[in-house]
């Protein structure tokens, strides 16, 4: 009987009031991240056994063969670690971005990739590559420009989507999802058109970028990405209570004292920046933004003060696992990471839909 359902977060709630629950959750997530990162650093074409990892990291000196150590250090610092950092950052941005968007639109199925926000960013980035080359022949835009272009593209799409779905302070979920679908299709068609008109050189750039591999991670690219998670951490405290209140509806949130206009602006800019940064680095990666917050809501409840940091952390873990699978499953070839997250995420999404359907009594 659904009427008798007890909050799955009940035990957590009783526990976390003591404060111990939050600490345990943080420790568990960070420990999980450390373990996954260690495994990711260890496996690959040039394997570094876990026992040699501390020495290669420079944590303590090793009696091992200096040439082995030098090779380990090279692989670890120039290939593995930047890639691990990129996967962690992008996973965190995708999952936390999904959680913010779901809170803002009051819908657990909202995901920047699904409703075209990532697609808008992808279109803007692809247009930058092609148009940039048209305007200045032979010019490949530096990587630093792509996140900005993708951010602006994502911002524009989110804003359009919001305007389409909202009327008189009420956001229609059906129109939001269907409008998002149309925008995603339009953005995808736009990217297709750019591919069509691109010359060989531009095509190579666009395709390389669209495949969305994390393989090209370098420390200088990480430096471009790094401000985004920092901004997320700084802004989270300003939006968590507002996102909780938004669960009541926009009018109720206002009645309860929330400046809903400010909350919406801040959240939209934040989600667009996060989706744009992720897409500019790794292409469109779907479903991480849906699965991670949903699982966490079941475990720790829907309160955003815990949900957003926990989503960022679990998102980093999930994408790190996905990326490690992507580069080892078919080694030496790499499976595009977006395919992996879709294969794992789409059935999950369908299960979620079916569950919602049964809740709605259909």
């Amino acid at each position, binding site marked *: 009987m659904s009427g008798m359902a007890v*909050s799955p977060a009940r035990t957590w709630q009783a526990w976390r009031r003591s404060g111990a629950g939050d600490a345990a959750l943080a420790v568990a997530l960070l420990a999980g991240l450390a373990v996954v990162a260690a495994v990711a650093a260890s496996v690959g074409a040039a394997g570094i056994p876990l026992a040699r990892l501390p020495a290669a990291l420079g944590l303590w000196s090793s009696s091992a063969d200096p040439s082995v150590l030098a090779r380990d250090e090279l692989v670890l610092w120039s290939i593995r670690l930047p890639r691990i950092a990129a996967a962690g950052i992008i996973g965190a941005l995708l999952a936390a971005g999904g959680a913010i968007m779901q809170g803002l639109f009051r819908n657990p199925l909202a995901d920047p990739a699904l409703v075209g926000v990532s697609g808008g960013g992808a279109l803007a980035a692809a247009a930058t590559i092609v148009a940039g080359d048209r305007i200045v022949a032979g010019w490949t835009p530096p990587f630093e420009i792509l996140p900005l272009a993708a951010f602006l593209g994502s911002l524009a799409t989110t804003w359009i989507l919001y305007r389409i779905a909202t009327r008189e302070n009420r956001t229609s979920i059906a129109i939001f999802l269907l409008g998002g679908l149309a925008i995603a299709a339009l953005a995808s068609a736009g990217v297709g058109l750019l591919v069509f008109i691109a010359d060989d050189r531009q095509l190579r750039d666009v395709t390389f970028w669209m495949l969305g591999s994390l393989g090209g991670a370098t420390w200088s690219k990480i430096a471009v990405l790094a401000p985004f998670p920092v901004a997320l951490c700084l802004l989270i405290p300003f939006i968590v209570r507002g996102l909780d209140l938004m669960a*009541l509806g926009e009018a109720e949130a206002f*009645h*309860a*004292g929330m400046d809903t206009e400010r909350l919406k602006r801040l959240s939209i800019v934040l989600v667009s920046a996060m989706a744009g940064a992720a897409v500019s680095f790794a292409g469109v990666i779907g479903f991480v933004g849906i699965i991670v917050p949903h699982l966490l*809501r079941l475990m720790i409840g*829907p309160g955003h003060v815990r949900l957003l940091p926990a989503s960022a952390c679990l998102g980093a873990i999930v994408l790190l696992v996905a990326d490690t699978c992507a580069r080892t499953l078919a080694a030496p070839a790499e499976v595009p990471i977006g395919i992996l997250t879709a294969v794992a995420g789409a059935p999950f999404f369908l299960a979620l839909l079916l569950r919602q359907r049964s809740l709605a009594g259909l």
Partner: protein
Amino acid sequence: MSPALEAEAVSVRAGASMLLDRVTFTVMPGETVAIVGPNGAGKSTLLRVLSGEIAPSAGAVRLKGREPRSCRPAALASKRAVLSQHVAVAFPFSVADVVRMGAGDRRGSALDALVDAALVEVDLDSMRDRIIGTLSGGEQQRAHLARVLVQLACGEADHGPGVLMLDEPTSNLDLCHQLDLLAIVGRRNERGTTVLAVVHDLNLATLVGRRILALDHGRLAGDGPAGAIVTDDMLGRVFGVGDAVNRVPPGPFVLPQLAKRLDRG
């Protein structure tokens, strides 16, 4: 004493239709006012304007002397609390979580006591850890009432007696909990809270409000004590119903069994 609420020739226009048409009245602190009227008369719109949710197209609204739209939402929330008719909570928050949302950023044992008291008052103490979406419509309405009571108490602790605005607060409640609601409103009013309630049921309106505002097609059709408003004449003009009002102490009551529909042309 300055008024708790003032509406000065308030009009609200949506496209070509006038939802409210030059409505003027004043509510003094500590009054209880029921707003009645047929479907589409503008009752809920009036509440939305008075609470600051929407701006009037013309005229002026003042809440404790200030235009609500000129206040920051947080400041406004400490002066008035609003219970809307339908609230659907999007995520699986527990009842206690939702009630706590009324308190803003406040934390601590005083708030815990306030939340506990509100849950007891609306008879939901045993369901505090249930997910609100799994509750019945009436139970959800009571949970939101508790949330609004917490907001009111927090505001009154800082700024003195506030204004409680209720939109059809009994629409999903059984008879027992309707009586509870009347008692809750009565207790707040005794402490000085001004109460403004849109009430569908005319009998309930006479119990909720010592004063009744009747709206018809966006215009104020009547304003006075229950005995002066709930009359066959007024019901005929506003609702198109005749022979409905009966008088038994302590006041008038409406008996649908004996009423007949009037042809108003």
